[in-house]
């Protein structure tokens, strides 16, 4: 039984080294079978140290008294900088600029992503009639830059930077994360929805047939 387990673990070798839990299992297996498999003493020691209950007897005995659990200057957990505009190249280059500045200049943890665009159709009419003069299809594009662990003294500077460098035609909003906006990021996969409906219809159909 043990050898079967071992074979399974060894077959999954590349993924084993990715997951610690499986490593621990491997260590346990090795500990039981080290006599059979040829591994050196240092590797045995390494495998032993990987197990969860391996703690030095001096662990936690002398804790430093000046340990800081919080930073000196309080920090905002997450800040979302969302940029919206109809002019795509301008918006895109500004979003890149802000992201790069936050990363390089302000030295803060950041991530940036696009939000699905909202399209609007505009029709202009001839005066005093319903005849369409012009038809426009506009897309309002959106980009969001997320900044993490912003010290409260840095935020005003970040706000000023974002506002001063804002190009024409771009609206910027700096706010804390909104779960509603998180929902709007996801575009519905119509194919999947249709297939699911089909599946439900078939299931219902089957029940009816019975």
């Amino acid at each position, binding site marked *: 039984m043990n050898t079967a387990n071992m074979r399974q673990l060894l077959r999954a070798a590349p993924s084993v080294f990715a997951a610690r839990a499986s490593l621990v299992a491997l260590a346990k297996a090795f500990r039981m079978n080290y006599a059979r498999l040829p591994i050196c003493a240092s590797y045995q020691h390494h495998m032993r140290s990987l197990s969860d209950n391996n703690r030095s007897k001096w662990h936690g005995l002398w804790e430093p008294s000046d340990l800081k659990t919080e930073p000196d200057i309080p920090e905002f957990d997450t800040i979302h900088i969302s940029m919206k505009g109809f002019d795509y190249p301008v918006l895109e280059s500004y979003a890149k600029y802000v992201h790069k500045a936050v990363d390089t200049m302000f030295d803060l943890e950041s991530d940036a992503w696009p939000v699905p665009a909202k399209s609007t159709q505009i029709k202009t009419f001839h005066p005093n009639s319903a005849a369409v003069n012009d038809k426009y299809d506009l897309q309002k594009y959106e980009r969001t830059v997320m900044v993490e662990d912003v010290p*409260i*003294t840095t*935020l*005003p500077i970040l*706000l*000023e930077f974002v*506002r*001063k*460098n804002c190009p*024409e035609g771009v609206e910027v909003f700096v706010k804390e994360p909104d779960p509603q906006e998180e929902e709007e990021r996801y575009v519905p996969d119509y194919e999947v929805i249709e297939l699911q409906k089909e599946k439900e219809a078939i299931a219902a159909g089957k029940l009816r047939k019975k």
Partner: protein
Amino acid sequence: MAYPPIFSSLMRCIQLCSRAKLLRAQSISSLLSSNQIRHGSILYSAVCVERYPVITSNKSTIEERFSELLSKLEQENSFLSDHEVRHLKEEQAAKMKQENADEESGNVDTETVTALDLEDKWDAEIKSFTPASRVTQADEQQNQKSVERRLESSLYLLVKQNIAGREHWVLPQATWENGETLRQTAERALSSVCGDVKATVLGNAPCAVAKYEPPKEDEEKPIKLFFYKAWYREGNVNTDSGLASDYVWVTKEEFKDFCHNSYNGHLKKFIFDM
């Protein structure tokens, strides 16, 4: 370390203020107000109200020429747009028709909207639209009290306040009182000195500080002036309260026309014009 008379006169003003408070409180036992004793130095909070630019900034000559060059390059390196392709096709079709017409008898032309017709229509549309002028009435009149002036650059509020018996052009400021935060002092300065101006103060911590250490011979207290930045929202100054005798909205370059050199030096630390 040559400081202007502003700070020494500030010191004298504080002593006068404290004596006035003393009389109001009717406590003859203490010579100095308890508010001032508690802190080693005199603290002030000033607020820098900034009206952000409304329109894009004007390009300098080099920027103009470079921007022209870039658009020229972009056009020369670009592909033809759908409209231009359509125009070319129509031209070719027209040529073919002419050649065919020479050979055969003339055919009836069907009414189509050509690309050129569309261009004419768009030109007419543009001509009918007049954008607002970049130069406002306030610009023409050189009215420095107006917020509508110089829409392409930031405007900052300067007031003429009486500090230690003398009038100075400064950012609106107020003395710190015991029990309030520096930010509250800044907001009080805004509401009491400026009147109807509505602004959003940025941050609880000041963005800059100006210190004055008097020489040891004069038994005066050191002064600390903390600056806060605020974004202008609406309203304008009214000098009804009497704390400010005059006010102006100026750009960064115009500061030197009003403030003392050393004060200007402190302002340059945190006012950036990008």
